[in-house]
């Protein structure tokens, strides 16, 4: 019988949803793998044009945000409401900084004439066009997921504040956390594939 207290079931549902997200990005990683094998040197050239500092900074930001979400789930189970809320707020701020960084990074690239279908890319070697094409598509899709994750975290924040999420019922917070960690997990793979190709 469906009882509202079956938190494990809700978690199972969330994990199943995460699998679909993994495969969604997986389709793009198939393209990355094939094109990397075909245009290795172009990918390396392209990778050098990306700013590593931005990449490293964003990785650190996401790792910290993941930590604070994990900490807030520990806090809610320990009945420390304030800490739980602080954790979510910290994660939200990190997400925001991530997006701001991404915005500057993208606009810098666009200023340089590097954007999908730009003349500079079309005139250059085809491999670099593909590299930056994948870069924009994958980081763009990832950015959308950051926004979705932040929305989920914000809803959880409201629920915690209203005590609708508490030490007995925290599936919503836990599931939003899972989603956020997945977004982080995907970034952990995006980061070396685009910023660190040598």
């Amino acid at each position, binding site marked *: 019988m469906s*009882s509202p*207290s*079956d*938190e*494990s079931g809700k*978690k*199972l549902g969330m*994990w*199943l949803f995460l*699998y679909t997200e*993994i*495969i969604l990005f*997986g*389709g793009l*990683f*198939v393209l990355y*793998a*094939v094109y*990397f*094998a*075909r245009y*290795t040197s172009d990918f390396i050239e392209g990778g050098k044009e990306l700013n*590593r500092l931005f990449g*490293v900074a964003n*990785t*650190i930001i996401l*790792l*910290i945000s*993941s*930590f604070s*979400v*994990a*900490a807030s*789930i*520990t806090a809610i*189970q*320990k009945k420390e409401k304030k800490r739980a809320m602080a954790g979510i707020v910290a994660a939200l701020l990190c997400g925001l900084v991530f997006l701001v960084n991404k915005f500057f990074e993208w606009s810098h690239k666009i200023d340089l004439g590097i954007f999908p279908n730009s003349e500079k890319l079309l005139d250059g070697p085809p491999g670099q066009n593909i590299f930056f094409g994948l870069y924009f598509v994958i980081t763009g899709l990832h950015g959308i997921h950051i926004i979705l994750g932040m929305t989920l975290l914000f809803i959880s924040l409201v629920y915690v504040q209203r005590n609708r999420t508490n030490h*007995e019922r925290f599936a919503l917070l836990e599931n939003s*956390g*899972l989603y956020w*960690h*997945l977004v*982080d*997990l995907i970034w*952990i*793979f995006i*980061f*070396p*594939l685009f910023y*660190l*190709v*040598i």
Partner: protein
Amino acid sequence: MKSLNTQHFFEYKILINVLLTLLALTGITVIASYIDLGKMNVWIALFIASIKGSFILFFFMHMKYEGRVLVLSFLGTVFFLGIMISFTFWDVGFR
């Protein structure tokens, strides 16, 4: 069937240690990328990324406490992803 409520959590100290490990691994992967090993670089980067991913899975995502169903189905998903990528190379690797 498992119990309905799984009240498992990690102490803050463990979480902080995990975070520090993750940051250290980020440093290692950046340093490793400066050593030119040709195509091996990608494999090394992916290997470190997988270790980082496992830390997140096990600790932040509580996979350590989950039952067989989640572990197996997650491995199944990764397996399917592996098939997607590797089987495509039956084509593009032999053209």
